[in-house]
């Protein structure tokens, strides 16, 4: 654990070294998120409600997903790059170290631009989502669980590269889960909706936590925590299985 924290500290120092770039990227991402708020305000200004979702509920969904995605893509930045690292032979450096490979890879790189997401998510929740002590606690639990589902899914699809030696599935999975999690899940129906609760768990990244904050039930909370546990465990298992097949490409610098 000490090695993992030390690695994370180094990654932070690396990102913080160029402070102008750090703050510029953070502000750019926050501005990017503000555009989505403008979109949803304009959209619901025009249509009122859609499939039970209105402006305030979608802003809550946006707060949850930006917080969760900010945690994963900011603090565990390599989660989205597992496929590329594997396909390029870029995890060699990690294998030579006396630490567990997956935790090391995940904390090795932090991405300043996604701290903007995290900061934006927290601000949006405080400003636009009627925070109370209970809602704030559920927001923390929901965002953390959503982040676990997202990190687990990204590692899972990235690890497919161990078996296929191509990283495109991981890239597409990354784009798909974030995109689908950015919209109210109830606009979908049938097979698509089922997929969002299973193969591409976008519903657990944003919509389920947002519903939990609005209306907490033990069943919904258990469902979310179970999804977080399942995707985290599946990620570790598939990554470990894939790592046994990994062959070096003698690249030492990309992890």
């Amino acid at each position, binding site marked *: 654990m000490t090695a993992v924290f030390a690695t994370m500290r180094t990654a932070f120092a690396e990102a913080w070294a160029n402070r102008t770039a750090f703050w510029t990227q953070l502000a750019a991402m926050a501005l990017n998120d503000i555009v989505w708020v403008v*979109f949803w305000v*304009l959209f619901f200004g025009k*249509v009122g409600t859609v499939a039970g979702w209105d402006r305030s509920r979608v802003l809550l969904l946006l707060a949850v997903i930006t917080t969760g995605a900010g945690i994963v893509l900011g603090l565990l930045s390599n989660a989205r790059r597992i496929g590329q690292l594997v396909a390029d032979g870029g995890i060699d450096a990690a294998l030579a170290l006396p630490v567990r490979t997956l935790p090391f890879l995940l904390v090795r790189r932090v991405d300043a631009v996604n701290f903007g997401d995290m900061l934006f998510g927290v601000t949006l929740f405080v400003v636009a989502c009627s925070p109370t002590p209970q809602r704030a606690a559920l927001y923390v639990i929901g965002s953390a669980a959503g982040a676990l589902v997202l990190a687990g899914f990204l590692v899972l699809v990235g690890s497919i590269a161990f078996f296929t030696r191509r990283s*495109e599935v991981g*890239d*597409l999975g990354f784009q798909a889960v974030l*995109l689908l999690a950015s919209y109210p899940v109830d606009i979908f129906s049938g097979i698509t909706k089922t997929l969002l609760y299973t193969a591409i768990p976008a519903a657990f990244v944003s919509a389920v936590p947002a519903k939990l904050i609005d209306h907490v039930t033990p069943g919904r909370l258990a469902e979310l925590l179970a999804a977080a546990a399942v995707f985290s465990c599946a990620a570790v298992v598939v990554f470990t299985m894939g790592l046994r097949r990994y062959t070096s490409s003698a690249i030492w610098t990309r992890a």
Partner: protein
Amino acid sequence: MSAWAPAAARSASRRAARDPIAVAVAVGFYAIVATVISTLWRTAATAHGGQVAGYTGVQLTWYLYFAEAAVTALQQRQIEMTGDDIVSGAIAVEMLRPVSVVGLRLATEFGRCLPRLAACTAIGLTLAWITSGPPVEVAALLLALPSLLLAVACNLAAQHAFAGAAFWVRDARSAWFLYQKLVFLLGAMLIPAEALPGWLHSAALALPFLAMAYVPARLAAGHLEPQLLLLQMGWLVVLGAAAVAVFAAGERRLQVVGG
């Protein structure tokens, strides 16, 4: 531009087509994005008497598949990639060639986009037809096809003009985020221009972004308005001239810095 521009575009197009997995990933991403956003708007139209901002659910579906195709056909991070080439000095090598740097880049990128554009359009046509029904006006839909090419050309020219700022600010990494959002909102990619509030609609009309997404989308939605193609051509001339001017000024500055 003489014969080298079409030759560069053809060559880039052939190279891009030889990587079917990259094209398939771009098309897969396009299919997901366009399906999600069109489902959202179609659901909204159904819930509100069948129309939003003067578009029916069917029209909105065709609108959004074409708006997305016009934008997804391009490299998302084109501004960042061009900016990196400027900042790293890699562009200095291109200045040794006896052709315009930005001209060759525009021709090459345009060619590279074509396989993705063709694939996205084919998939978009199929999905729009399956999810909502046949096109509202076939003649307008046919006009949307050349309009897609003009939209991509306008977008590329604007992105190069935007990325040229890297000659002065030495960083274009965050700029693509902001540019992309301008196309999303002021280009009416996510929300039809007619649904924008008055002040934002006026701003969109005064800026070039509508030429990059709205025009092919509006035509595909069944509005037979050929004058929109003239609007795109006008903006293409303006944006192309802006890109050439920015690069010409920047290249002089790069020589001073040393490349």
